[in-house]
Protein backbone atom coordinates (compact mmCIF):
# COMPACT_ATOMS: atom_id res chain seq x y z
CA UNK A 1 0.00 0.00 0.00
CA UNK A 2 2.81 2.40 0.98
CA UNK A 3 4.77 1.39 -2.06
CA UNK A 4 1.74 1.90 -4.17
CA UNK A 5 1.32 5.42 -2.80
CA UNK A 6 5.00 6.09 -3.37
CA UNK A 7 4.86 4.95 -6.99
CA UNK A 8 1.76 7.03 -7.50
CA UNK A 9 3.57 10.09 -6.14
CA UNK A 10 6.62 9.45 -8.32
CA UNK A 11 4.37 9.35 -11.32
CA UNK A 12 2.48 12.41 -10.26
CA UNK A 13 5.64 14.45 -9.60
CA UNK A 14 7.66 12.99 -12.44
CA UNK A 15 8.32 16.31 -14.18
CA UNK A 16 9.36 18.02 -10.97
CA UNK A 17 11.59 15.09 -10.07
CA UNK A 18 13.17 15.21 -13.52
CA UNK A 19 13.76 18.92 -13.08
CA UNK A 20 15.49 18.24 -9.78
CA UNK A 21 17.56 15.40 -11.18
CA UNK A 22 20.58 17.42 -12.43
CA UNK A 23 21.01 19.24 -9.12
CA UNK A 24 20.53 16.06 -7.14
CA UNK A 25 23.12 14.31 -9.28
CA UNK A 26 25.49 17.26 -8.88
CA UNK A 27 25.35 17.32 -5.08
CA UNK A 28 25.44 13.54 -4.84
CA UNK A 29 28.57 13.47 -6.93
CA UNK A 30 30.41 16.54 -5.67
CA UNK A 31 29.25 16.66 -2.05
CA UNK A 32 27.99 13.28 -0.85
CA UNK A 33 30.47 11.04 -2.64
CA UNK A 34 33.40 13.06 -1.18
CA UNK A 35 31.78 12.61 2.24
CA UNK A 36 32.12 8.87 1.74
CA UNK A 37 35.66 9.58 0.59
CA UNK A 38 36.49 10.58 4.16
CA UNK A 39 37.66 6.99 4.57
CA UNK A 40 40.99 7.91 2.96
CA UNK A 41 41.83 9.78 6.15
CA UNK A 42 42.01 6.35 7.77
CA UNK A 43 44.00 4.75 4.98
CA UNK A 44 47.45 4.70 3.53
CA UNK A 45 46.64 6.11 0.12
CA UNK A 46 48.21 4.54 -2.91
CA UNK A 47 47.37 5.43 -6.44
CA UNK A 48 46.75 1.86 -7.55
CA UNK A 49 44.20 1.25 -4.83
CA UNK A 50 42.50 4.62 -4.99
CA UNK A 51 40.09 5.87 -2.38
CA UNK A 52 38.37 2.62 -1.59
CA UNK A 53 41.06 0.07 -2.42
CA UNK A 54 43.95 1.40 -0.34
CA UNK A 55 44.97 -0.32 2.88
CA UNK A 56 43.65 0.86 6.23
CA UNK A 57 46.09 2.41 8.65
CA UNK A 58 43.83 3.34 11.51
CA UNK A 59 44.49 6.70 13.08
CA UNK A 60 48.07 7.01 11.83
CA UNK A 61 47.27 10.01 9.62
CA UNK A 62 45.61 11.81 12.48
CA UNK A 63 48.45 11.00 14.83
CA UNK A 64 50.90 12.35 12.30
CA UNK A 65 48.86 15.53 11.89
CA UNK A 66 48.58 16.18 15.61
CA UNK A 67 52.16 15.22 16.39
CA UNK A 68 53.54 17.44 13.62
CA UNK A 69 52.81 20.39 15.88
CA UNK A 70 50.98 22.18 13.07
CA UNK A 71 47.51 21.08 14.11
CA UNK A 72 47.30 23.39 17.07
CA UNK A 73 48.86 26.35 15.22
CA UNK A 74 46.57 26.20 12.20
CA UNK A 75 43.44 25.57 14.25
CA UNK A 76 44.23 28.45 16.57
CA UNK A 77 45.06 30.76 13.68
CA UNK A 78 41.87 29.88 11.82
CA UNK A 79 39.64 30.53 14.83
CA UNK A 80 41.42 33.68 16.00
CA UNK A 81 41.46 35.23 12.54
CA UNK A 82 37.78 34.55 12.08
CA UNK A 83 36.92 36.01 15.47
CA UNK A 84 38.91 39.15 14.66
CA UNK A 85 37.25 39.37 11.23
CA UNK A 86 33.78 39.03 12.72
CA UNK A 87 34.39 41.75 15.31
CA UNK A 88 36.23 44.27 13.15
CA UNK A 89 34.24 43.78 9.96
CA UNK A 90 30.81 44.00 11.56
CA UNK A 91 31.80 47.02 13.60
CA UNK A 92 33.06 48.90 10.54
CA UNK A 93 30.12 47.84 8.38
CA UNK A 94 27.55 49.04 10.92
CA UNK A 95 29.52 52.25 11.41
CA UNK A 96 29.62 52.96 7.67
CA UNK A 97 25.98 51.98 7.15
CA UNK A 98 24.74 54.35 9.86
CA UNK A 99 26.84 57.22 8.54
CA UNK A 100 25.72 56.58 4.96
CA UNK A 101 22.11 56.46 6.04
CA UNK A 102 22.10 59.61 8.11
CA UNK A 103 24.33 61.85 6.13
CA UNK A 104 23.11 64.46 3.64
CA UNK A 105 23.87 64.77 -0.03
CA UNK A 106 22.47 62.04 -2.22
CA UNK A 107 25.34 62.38 -4.62
CA UNK A 108 27.97 61.97 -1.92
CA UNK A 109 26.14 59.00 -0.49
CA UNK A 110 25.80 57.15 -3.78
CA UNK A 111 29.38 57.76 -4.76
CA UNK A 112 30.70 56.66 -1.38
CA UNK A 113 28.63 53.50 -1.34
CA UNK A 114 29.85 52.58 -4.81
CA UNK A 115 33.46 53.13 -3.85
CA UNK A 116 33.17 51.12 -0.64
CA UNK A 117 31.66 48.23 -2.61
CA UNK A 118 34.41 48.21 -5.22
CA UNK A 119 36.95 45.95 -3.48
CA UNK A 120 34.33 43.20 -3.27
CA UNK A 121 34.51 42.82 -7.04
CA UNK A 122 38.18 42.11 -7.58
CA UNK A 123 39.83 38.75 -7.28
CA UNK A 124 42.13 37.78 -4.45
CA UNK A 125 44.92 37.51 -7.00
CA UNK A 126 44.65 41.23 -7.65
CA UNK A 127 44.39 41.98 -3.94
CA UNK A 128 47.56 39.98 -3.37
CA UNK A 129 49.32 41.95 -6.11
CA UNK A 130 48.22 45.27 -4.64
CA UNK A 131 49.35 44.22 -1.18
CA UNK A 132 52.72 43.26 -2.57
CA UNK A 133 53.04 46.68 -4.21
CA UNK A 134 52.31 48.38 -0.95
CA UNK A 135 54.33 46.19 1.37
CA UNK A 136 57.39 44.75 -0.32
CA UNK A 137 60.80 45.69 0.98
CA UNK A 138 62.54 47.04 -2.11
CA UNK A 139 59.99 49.15 -3.93
CA UNK A 140 56.81 48.91 -1.88
CA UNK A 141 54.95 52.15 -1.36
CA UNK A 142 55.07 51.91 2.42
CA UNK A 143 58.81 51.50 2.46
CA UNK A 144 59.29 54.16 -0.21
CA UNK A 145 57.42 56.54 2.09
CA UNK A 146 59.46 55.50 5.11
CA UNK A 147 62.70 55.99 3.21
CA UNK A 148 61.45 59.33 1.98
CA UNK A 149 60.96 60.37 5.57
CA UNK A 150 64.42 59.19 6.43
CA UNK A 151 63.17 56.22 8.46
CA UNK A 152 64.25 52.59 8.47
CA UNK A 153 62.29 50.48 5.98
CA UNK A 154 60.45 47.48 7.41
CA UNK A 155 60.81 43.97 6.03
CA UNK A 156 57.14 43.06 6.22
CA UNK A 157 57.32 39.80 4.25
CA UNK A 158 59.87 38.46 6.70
CA UNK A 159 58.14 39.52 9.91
CA UNK A 160 55.26 37.30 11.06
CA UNK A 161 54.10 39.66 13.82
CA UNK A 162 52.79 42.29 11.38
CA UNK A 163 50.52 39.88 9.58
CA UNK A 164 47.55 39.55 11.90
CA UNK A 165 47.06 43.29 11.55
CA UNK A 166 47.57 43.27 7.80
CA UNK A 167 45.16 40.39 7.23
CA UNK A 168 42.48 41.87 9.45
CA UNK A 169 42.82 45.15 7.57
CA UNK A 170 42.62 43.42 4.19
CA UNK A 171 39.55 41.45 5.20
CA UNK A 172 37.87 44.63 6.45
CA UNK A 173 38.78 46.38 3.22
CA UNK A 174 37.41 43.63 0.99
CA UNK A 175 34.13 43.12 2.85
CA UNK A 176 33.29 46.65 3.95
CA UNK A 177 30.98 47.50 1.04
CA UNK A 178 29.24 44.14 1.01
CA UNK A 179 28.36 44.25 4.70
CA UNK A 180 27.45 47.91 4.56
CA UNK A 181 24.82 47.16 1.95
CA UNK A 182 23.28 44.47 4.16
CA UNK A 183 23.13 46.75 7.17
CA UNK A 184 21.81 49.63 5.07
CA UNK A 185 18.95 47.41 3.98
CA UNK A 186 18.27 46.53 7.60
CA UNK A 187 18.26 50.20 8.60
CA UNK A 188 15.90 51.00 5.74
CA UNK A 189 13.51 48.42 7.18
CA UNK A 190 13.22 50.19 10.51
CA UNK A 191 9.79 51.67 11.13
CA UNK A 192 9.90 55.38 10.29
CA UNK A 193 7.40 56.20 12.99
CA UNK A 194 9.96 55.44 15.65
CA UNK A 195 12.21 58.14 14.27
CA UNK A 196 9.35 60.58 14.04
CA UNK A 197 8.34 59.91 17.62
CA UNK A 198 11.92 60.37 18.77
CA UNK A 199 12.11 63.62 16.92
CA UNK A 200 8.98 64.94 18.58
CA UNK A 201 10.42 63.94 21.95
CA UNK A 202 13.46 66.03 21.12
CA UNK A 203 16.03 63.27 20.79
CA UNK A 204 19.26 64.37 19.15
CA UNK A 205 20.85 62.39 16.36
CA UNK A 206 23.24 60.49 18.61
CA UNK A 207 20.45 59.45 20.95
CA UNK A 208 18.42 58.38 17.96
CA UNK A 209 21.23 56.18 16.67
CA UNK A 210 21.96 54.67 20.07
CA UNK A 211 18.35 54.13 21.10
CA UNK A 212 16.64 53.27 17.82
CA UNK A 213 18.98 52.38 14.97
CA UNK A 214 21.42 50.16 16.87
CA UNK A 215 18.84 48.12 18.81
CA UNK A 216 16.97 47.54 15.58
CA UNK A 217 20.12 46.24 13.91
CA UNK A 218 20.68 43.54 16.52
CA UNK A 219 18.58 40.87 14.78
CA UNK A 220 20.57 41.30 11.55
CA UNK A 221 23.83 41.45 13.46
CA UNK A 222 22.99 38.30 15.41
CA UNK A 223 22.12 36.32 12.29
CA UNK A 224 25.26 37.42 10.45
CA UNK A 225 27.47 36.74 13.46
CA UNK A 226 25.89 33.33 14.00
CA UNK A 227 26.48 32.37 10.39
CA UNK A 228 30.06 33.52 10.73
CA UNK A 229 30.61 31.76 14.06
CA UNK A 230 29.33 28.55 12.52
CA UNK A 231 32.11 28.88 9.95
CA UNK A 232 34.79 29.82 12.40
CA UNK A 233 37.00 26.87 11.46
CA UNK A 234 36.83 27.58 7.74
CA UNK A 235 39.63 29.84 6.60
CA UNK A 236 39.29 32.01 3.55
CA UNK A 237 41.74 30.16 1.34
CA UNK A 238 41.80 32.75 -1.44
CA UNK A 239 42.78 35.49 0.93
CA UNK A 240 45.46 33.67 2.88
CA UNK A 241 46.94 32.00 -0.15
CA UNK A 242 47.21 35.15 -2.22
CA UNK A 243 48.40 37.36 0.60
CA UNK A 244 50.98 34.98 2.00
CA UNK A 245 51.48 32.29 -0.63
CA UNK A 246 54.16 29.75 0.14
CA UNK A 247 56.20 32.11 2.28
CA UNK A 248 57.05 29.72 5.12
CA UNK A 249 58.62 32.43 7.25
CA UNK A 250 55.16 33.81 7.95
CA UNK A 251 53.34 30.54 8.58
CA UNK A 252 53.50 30.71 12.38
CA UNK A 253 51.08 33.62 12.32
CA UNK A 254 49.33 33.15 8.98
CA UNK A 255 48.79 29.46 8.30
CA UNK A 256 45.16 28.35 8.54
CA UNK A 257 43.66 24.88 8.21
CA UNK A 258 42.70 25.42 4.58
CA UNK A 259 46.15 26.52 3.44
CA UNK A 260 47.71 23.70 5.42
CA UNK A 261 45.44 21.11 3.83
CA UNK A 262 46.14 22.53 0.38
CA UNK A 263 49.91 22.46 0.83
CA UNK A 264 49.89 18.96 2.28
CA UNK A 265 47.92 17.79 -0.74
CA UNK A 266 49.51 19.69 -3.62
CA UNK A 267 53.01 20.60 -2.48
CA UNK A 268 54.03 17.71 -0.24
CA UNK A 269 51.56 15.26 -1.76
CA UNK A 270 50.80 13.81 1.65
CA UNK A 271 47.29 12.68 0.86
CA UNK A 272 46.60 10.80 4.08
CA UNK A 273 47.52 13.59 6.44
CA UNK A 274 45.89 16.22 4.27
CA UNK A 275 42.64 14.24 4.31
CA UNK A 276 42.92 13.77 8.07
CA UNK A 277 43.32 17.52 8.58
CA UNK A 278 40.31 18.11 6.31
CA UNK A 279 38.16 15.64 8.25
CA UNK A 280 39.27 17.24 11.50
CA UNK A 281 38.16 20.60 10.12
CA UNK A 282 34.82 19.31 8.82
CA UNK A 283 33.93 17.60 12.08
CA UNK A 284 34.96 20.62 14.12
CA UNK A 285 32.95 22.88 11.84
CA UNK A 286 29.90 20.65 11.94
CA UNK A 287 30.00 20.45 15.72
CA UNK A 288 30.32 24.23 15.92
CA UNK A 289 27.36 24.93 13.65
CA UNK A 290 25.18 22.40 15.43
CA UNK A 291 26.00 23.73 18.89
CA UNK A 292 25.57 27.35 17.86
CA UNK A 293 22.23 26.54 16.32
CA UNK A 294 21.18 24.48 19.33
CA UNK A 295 22.06 27.29 21.72
CA UNK A 296 20.20 29.88 19.68
CA UNK A 297 17.20 27.63 19.34
CA UNK A 298 16.99 27.28 23.07
CA UNK A 299 17.28 30.99 23.56
CA UNK A 300 15.00 32.16 20.77
CA UNK A 301 13.48 29.74 18.33
CA UNK A 302 12.90 32.28 15.57
CA UNK A 303 16.52 33.27 15.39
CA UNK A 304 17.82 29.75 14.82
CA UNK A 305 19.38 29.09 11.45
CA UNK A 306 17.51 25.83 10.92
Amino acid sequence: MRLHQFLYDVKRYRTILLMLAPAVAFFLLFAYVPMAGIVIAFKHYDYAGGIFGSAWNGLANFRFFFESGDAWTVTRNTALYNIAFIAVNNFLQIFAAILLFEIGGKWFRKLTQSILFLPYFISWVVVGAIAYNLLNYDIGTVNALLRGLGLEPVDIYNTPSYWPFILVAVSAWKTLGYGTVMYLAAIAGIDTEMYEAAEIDGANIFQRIMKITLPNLYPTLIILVLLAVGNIFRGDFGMFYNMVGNNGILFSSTDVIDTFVFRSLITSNDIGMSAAAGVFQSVLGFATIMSVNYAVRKYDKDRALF
Partner: protein
Amino acid sequence: MQTSTERLNPRAPLHSRGRLQKDRLLFSVIGYVSLTLLALLCVLPFLLVVSSSLTEESTIIVKGYPFLPVDFSLEAYGILFKYPTQMLKAYIVTIGVTAAGTLLGLFLTSMTAYALSRKDFKWRNHFSFFFFFTTLFSGGLVPWYLLIVNYLHMKDTPLALVIPMVLNVFYIIVMKSFMSSIPEAIVESAKIDGAGDFLIYARLILPLSKPALATIGLFLALAYWNDWYNALLFVSNENLMPLQYYLYKMLGNMDGMRKAMMSAGAVVTTTIPSESLKMAMTVVATGPILLAYPFVQRYFVQGLTIGAVKG
Protein backbone atom coordinates in the same frame (compact mmCIF):
# COMPACT_ATOMS: atom_id res chain seq x y z
CA MET B 1 15.47 47.45 -4.12
CA GLN B 2 14.21 50.39 -2.24
CA THR B 3 17.25 52.15 -1.02
CA SER B 4 17.29 53.60 2.40
CA THR B 5 17.22 57.07 1.10
CA GLU B 6 14.15 57.03 -1.06
CA ARG B 7 12.02 55.65 1.68
CA LEU B 8 12.74 57.93 4.49
CA ASN B 9 14.43 61.22 4.74
CA PRO B 10 16.04 61.56 8.11
CA ARG B 11 17.72 64.66 6.81
CA ALA B 12 14.49 66.58 6.77
CA PRO B 13 14.99 69.99 8.39
CA LEU B 14 15.25 69.42 12.06
CA HIS B 15 12.97 70.93 14.62
CA SER B 16 13.70 74.56 15.23
CA ARG B 17 13.81 74.35 18.97
CA GLY B 18 16.79 75.84 20.79
CA ARG B 19 19.64 73.36 20.43
CA LEU B 20 18.95 73.33 16.76
CA GLN B 21 21.22 71.24 14.64
CA LYS B 22 24.30 71.40 16.81
CA ASP B 23 24.24 67.62 17.09
CA ARG B 24 23.59 67.34 13.39
CA LEU B 25 26.49 69.58 12.54
CA LEU B 26 28.83 67.53 14.73
CA PHE B 27 27.47 64.34 13.20
CA SER B 28 27.95 65.63 9.68
CA VAL B 29 31.57 66.51 10.36
CA ILE B 30 32.24 63.05 11.78
CA GLY B 31 30.30 61.43 8.97
CA TYR B 32 31.85 63.20 6.04
CA VAL B 33 35.37 62.88 7.39
CA SER B 34 35.07 59.17 8.24
CA LEU B 35 33.33 58.21 5.03
CA THR B 36 35.77 60.18 2.91
CA LEU B 37 38.66 58.46 4.66
CA LEU B 38 37.11 55.02 4.18
CA ALA B 39 36.36 55.76 0.53
CA LEU B 40 39.94 56.93 -0.03
CA LEU B 41 41.26 53.73 1.54
CA CYS B 42 39.06 51.74 -0.83
CA VAL B 43 39.99 53.61 -3.98
CA LEU B 44 43.69 54.40 -3.46
CA PRO B 45 44.91 50.83 -4.06
CA PHE B 46 43.25 50.90 -7.47
CA LEU B 47 44.88 54.22 -8.20
CA LEU B 48 48.20 52.70 -7.19
CA VAL B 49 47.85 49.91 -9.74
CA VAL B 50 46.75 52.16 -12.59
CA SER B 51 49.39 54.79 -11.86
CA SER B 52 52.14 52.20 -11.61
CA SER B 53 51.15 50.71 -14.93
CA LEU B 54 51.57 54.16 -16.49
CA THR B 55 54.87 55.02 -14.88
CA GLU B 56 58.37 54.67 -16.29
CA GLU B 57 59.96 51.48 -14.98
CA SER B 58 63.15 53.14 -13.75
CA THR B 59 61.15 55.55 -11.64
CA ILE B 60 59.32 52.70 -9.92
CA ILE B 61 62.59 51.00 -9.13
CA VAL B 62 64.00 54.14 -7.57
CA LYS B 63 60.98 55.70 -5.93
CA GLY B 64 58.60 52.81 -5.36
CA TYR B 65 55.09 52.37 -6.73
CA PRO B 66 53.43 55.77 -7.05
CA PHE B 67 49.84 56.77 -6.29
CA LEU B 68 49.83 59.18 -9.21
CA PRO B 69 51.60 58.58 -12.50
CA VAL B 70 55.02 60.19 -12.47
CA ASP B 71 57.20 60.01 -15.57
CA PHE B 72 54.21 58.97 -17.63
CA SER B 73 54.90 56.05 -19.95
CA LEU B 74 52.78 53.72 -22.02
CA GLU B 75 55.64 51.31 -22.58
CA ALA B 76 54.11 48.53 -20.45
CA TYR B 77 50.85 48.58 -22.38
CA GLY B 78 52.82 48.82 -25.63
CA ILE B 79 54.60 45.57 -24.86
CA LEU B 80 51.46 43.91 -23.59
CA PHE B 81 49.50 44.66 -26.74
CA LYS B 82 52.39 44.05 -29.09
CA TYR B 83 52.79 40.44 -27.93
CA PRO B 84 49.36 39.60 -26.62
CA THR B 85 49.19 35.90 -27.50
CA GLN B 86 49.18 34.32 -24.06
CA MET B 87 47.08 37.02 -22.45
CA LEU B 88 44.60 36.81 -25.29
CA LYS B 89 44.33 33.05 -24.84
CA ALA B 90 43.65 33.55 -21.14
CA TYR B 91 41.02 36.14 -21.99
CA ILE B 92 39.29 33.77 -24.36
CA VAL B 93 39.35 30.97 -21.78
CA THR B 94 37.87 33.26 -19.14
CA ILE B 95 35.17 34.62 -21.41
CA GLY B 96 34.21 31.12 -22.53
CA VAL B 97 34.19 29.69 -19.02
CA THR B 98 32.25 32.67 -17.68
CA ALA B 99 29.63 32.50 -20.41
CA ALA B 100 29.18 28.74 -20.21
CA GLY B 101 29.22 28.61 -16.42
CA THR B 102 26.82 31.49 -15.99
CA LEU B 103 24.27 30.19 -18.49
CA LEU B 104 24.40 26.61 -17.27
CA GLY B 105 24.40 27.75 -13.66
CA LEU B 106 21.38 29.99 -14.18
CA PHE B 107 19.47 27.24 -15.93
CA LEU B 108 20.17 24.62 -13.26
CA THR B 109 19.70 26.99 -10.33
CA SER B 110 16.37 28.30 -11.56
CA MET B 111 15.04 24.89 -12.52
CA THR B 112 15.97 23.45 -9.12
CA ALA B 113 14.56 26.48 -7.33
CA TYR B 114 11.31 26.18 -9.27
CA ALA B 115 10.85 22.57 -8.19
CA LEU B 116 11.56 23.44 -4.57
CA SER B 117 9.22 26.43 -4.66
CA ARG B 118 6.20 24.34 -5.67
CA LYS B 119 4.03 24.21 -2.59
CA ASP B 120 2.11 21.18 -3.84
CA PHE B 121 5.32 19.16 -4.17
CA LYS B 122 5.21 16.71 -1.32
CA TRP B 123 8.92 16.11 -0.89
CA ARG B 124 10.21 19.63 -1.26
CA ASN B 125 11.44 19.83 2.34
CA HIS B 126 13.31 16.57 1.99
CA PHE B 127 15.06 17.79 -1.13
CA SER B 128 15.76 21.18 0.44
CA PHE B 129 17.44 19.43 3.31
CA PHE B 130 19.40 17.23 0.94
CA PHE B 131 20.88 20.37 -0.61
CA PHE B 132 21.23 22.37 2.59
CA PHE B 133 23.10 19.65 4.45
CA THR B 134 26.04 20.03 2.06
CA THR B 135 26.66 23.49 3.51
CA LEU B 136 26.93 22.04 7.02
CA PHE B 137 29.26 19.16 6.40
CA SER B 138 31.73 18.24 3.71
CA GLY B 139 34.29 15.60 2.98
CA GLY B 140 37.01 18.23 2.74
CA LEU B 141 39.34 19.14 -0.08
CA VAL B 142 41.11 15.82 -0.55
CA PRO B 143 38.30 13.41 -1.51
CA TRP B 144 36.75 16.10 -3.70
CA TYR B 145 40.06 16.74 -5.43
CA LEU B 146 40.78 13.05 -5.94
CA LEU B 147 37.28 12.48 -7.29
CA ILE B 148 37.68 15.16 -9.92
CA VAL B 149 41.23 14.29 -10.90
CA ASN B 150 41.44 10.52 -10.57
CA TYR B 151 37.88 9.36 -11.11
CA LEU B 152 36.22 11.96 -13.32
CA HIS B 153 39.48 12.75 -15.16
CA MET B 154 38.63 16.41 -15.47
CA LYS B 155 42.17 17.64 -14.99
CA ASP B 156 43.21 19.95 -17.81
CA THR B 157 39.78 20.01 -19.34
CA PRO B 158 37.49 23.05 -19.50
CA LEU B 159 34.96 21.06 -17.47
CA ALA B 160 37.15 21.42 -14.38
CA LEU B 161 36.78 25.19 -14.64
CA VAL B 162 33.02 25.16 -15.19
CA ILE B 163 31.41 22.26 -13.35
CA PRO B 164 32.66 22.56 -9.74
CA MET B 165 31.13 26.04 -9.34
CA VAL B 166 28.00 25.62 -11.40
CA LEU B 167 25.58 25.07 -8.52
CA ASN B 168 25.59 26.78 -5.16
CA VAL B 169 23.09 26.11 -2.39
CA PHE B 170 22.94 29.75 -1.40
CA TYR B 171 21.88 30.81 -4.90
CA ILE B 172 19.24 28.07 -5.00
CA ILE B 173 17.80 29.35 -1.72
CA VAL B 174 17.74 32.96 -2.91
CA MET B 175 16.11 31.97 -6.19
CA LYS B 176 13.62 29.76 -4.40
CA SER B 177 12.52 32.48 -2.02
CA PHE B 178 12.08 34.83 -4.96
CA MET B 179 9.95 32.30 -6.85
CA SER B 180 7.91 31.56 -3.74
CA SER B 181 6.80 35.17 -3.77
CA ILE B 182 5.22 34.79 -7.22
CA PRO B 183 1.45 34.37 -6.74
CA GLU B 184 0.36 30.75 -6.71
CA ALA B 185 -2.68 31.62 -8.83
CA ILE B 186 -0.48 32.01 -11.92
CA VAL B 187 0.68 28.41 -11.67
CA GLU B 188 -2.80 27.17 -10.81
CA SER B 189 -4.45 28.74 -13.82
CA ALA B 190 -1.78 27.43 -16.15
CA LYS B 191 -2.32 23.96 -14.72
CA ILE B 192 -6.00 24.19 -15.43
CA ASP B 193 -5.11 25.07 -19.00
CA GLY B 194 -3.18 21.84 -19.09
CA ALA B 195 0.38 23.16 -18.97
CA GLY B 196 3.01 20.82 -17.52
CA ASP B 197 5.55 21.84 -14.90
CA PHE B 198 8.41 22.34 -17.28
CA LEU B 199 6.32 24.54 -19.51
CA ILE B 200 5.14 26.59 -16.55
CA TYR B 201 8.73 27.01 -15.44
CA ALA B 202 10.03 27.97 -18.86
CA ARG B 203 7.17 30.14 -20.09
CA LEU B 204 5.73 31.69 -16.96
CA ILE B 205 8.07 31.60 -14.00
CA LEU B 206 11.35 32.37 -15.77
CA PRO B 207 10.12 35.62 -17.36
CA LEU B 208 8.69 36.69 -14.01
CA SER B 209 11.97 35.95 -12.27
CA LYS B 210 14.09 38.32 -14.34
CA PRO B 211 15.30 40.42 -11.40
CA ALA B 212 16.47 37.36 -9.49
CA LEU B 213 18.00 35.87 -12.65
CA ALA B 214 19.92 39.09 -13.29
CA THR B 215 21.25 39.13 -9.75
CA ILE B 216 22.25 35.47 -9.55
CA GLY B 217 23.62 35.63 -13.10
CA LEU B 218 25.91 38.47 -12.14
CA PHE B 219 27.06 36.73 -8.98
CA LEU B 220 27.85 33.65 -11.05
CA ALA B 221 29.60 35.68 -13.74
CA LEU B 222 31.71 37.49 -11.16
CA ALA B 223 32.66 34.22 -9.49
CA TYR B 224 33.70 32.68 -12.82
CA TRP B 225 35.55 35.77 -13.98
CA ASN B 226 37.52 35.99 -10.73
CA ASP B 227 38.14 32.27 -10.37
CA TRP B 228 41.71 31.12 -10.14
CA TYR B 229 41.25 28.41 -7.51
CA ASN B 230 39.96 25.70 -9.81
CA ALA B 231 42.73 26.51 -12.24
CA LEU B 232 45.28 26.31 -9.44
CA LEU B 233 44.04 22.83 -8.62
CA PHE B 234 43.17 21.41 -12.01
CA VAL B 235 44.97 23.24 -14.82
CA SER B 236 48.57 22.89 -15.86
CA ASN B 237 48.06 23.27 -19.59
CA GLU B 238 49.02 26.82 -20.59
CA ASN B 239 46.33 27.00 -23.22
CA LEU B 240 43.64 26.47 -20.63
CA MET B 241 44.72 29.07 -18.10
CA PRO B 242 42.00 31.55 -17.24
CA LEU B 243 42.86 35.19 -16.80
CA GLN B 244 43.18 35.44 -13.03
CA TYR B 245 45.31 32.34 -12.82
CA TYR B 246 47.50 33.56 -15.64
CA LEU B 247 47.90 36.82 -13.77
CA TYR B 248 48.72 34.91 -10.60
CA LYS B 249 51.40 32.97 -12.45
CA MET B 250 52.90 36.02 -14.09
CA LEU B 251 52.96 38.11 -10.93
CA GLY B 252 55.03 35.54 -9.17
CA ASN B 253 57.17 34.61 -12.08
CA MET B 254 58.98 37.16 -14.18
CA ASP B 255 61.01 34.53 -15.99
CA GLY B 256 57.78 32.95 -17.08
CA MET B 257 56.65 36.30 -18.32
CA ARG B 258 59.82 36.80 -20.33
CA LYS B 259 59.36 33.37 -21.84
CA ALA B 260 55.77 34.10 -22.72
CA MET B 261 56.84 37.32 -24.39
CA MET B 262 59.65 35.54 -26.19
CA SER B 263 57.41 32.81 -27.51
CA ALA B 264 55.16 35.57 -28.77
CA GLY B 265 58.11 36.92 -30.71
CA ALA B 266 59.49 39.61 -28.49
CA VAL B 267 63.20 40.23 -28.63
CA VAL B 268 63.98 39.77 -25.02
CA THR B 269 66.40 42.09 -23.49
CA THR B 270 66.69 42.73 -19.81
CA THR B 271 64.79 45.95 -20.36
CA ILE B 272 61.32 44.47 -20.18
CA PRO B 273 59.67 46.79 -17.68
CA SER B 274 58.58 44.01 -15.39
CA GLU B 275 57.08 46.05 -12.56
CA SER B 276 54.92 48.31 -14.70
CA LEU B 277 54.12 45.38 -16.97
CA LYS B 278 52.75 43.41 -14.02
CA MET B 279 50.55 46.34 -13.18
CA ALA B 280 49.42 46.77 -16.77
CA MET B 281 48.42 43.09 -16.78
CA THR B 282 46.51 43.59 -13.56
CA VAL B 283 44.67 46.52 -15.11
CA VAL B 284 43.81 44.58 -18.24
CA ALA B 285 42.61 41.56 -16.21
CA THR B 286 40.45 43.65 -13.91
CA GLY B 287 39.35 46.27 -16.41
CA PRO B 288 36.15 44.62 -17.64
CA ILE B 289 34.85 44.31 -14.08
CA LEU B 290 35.59 47.92 -13.29
CA LEU B 291 33.95 49.04 -16.53
CA ALA B 292 30.82 46.98 -15.93
CA TYR B 293 30.71 47.86 -12.25
CA PRO B 294 28.68 51.10 -12.38
CA PHE B 295 25.96 49.40 -14.42
CA VAL B 296 25.63 46.17 -12.50
CA GLN B 297 26.20 47.36 -8.96
CA ARG B 298 22.52 47.70 -8.17
CA TYR B 299 21.82 44.07 -9.02
CA PHE B 300 24.36 42.99 -6.45
CA VAL B 301 22.79 45.28 -3.88
CA GLN B 302 19.46 43.70 -4.79
CA GLY B 303 20.85 40.19 -4.38
CA LEU B 304 22.41 40.88 -1.00
CA THR B 305 19.13 42.29 0.17
CA ILE B 306 17.13 39.27 -0.97
CA GLY B 307 19.73 37.05 0.64
CA ALA B 308 19.63 38.99 3.88
CA VAL B 309 16.01 38.03 4.36
CA LYS B 310 16.08 34.65 6.01
CA GLY B 311 14.57 32.17 3.52
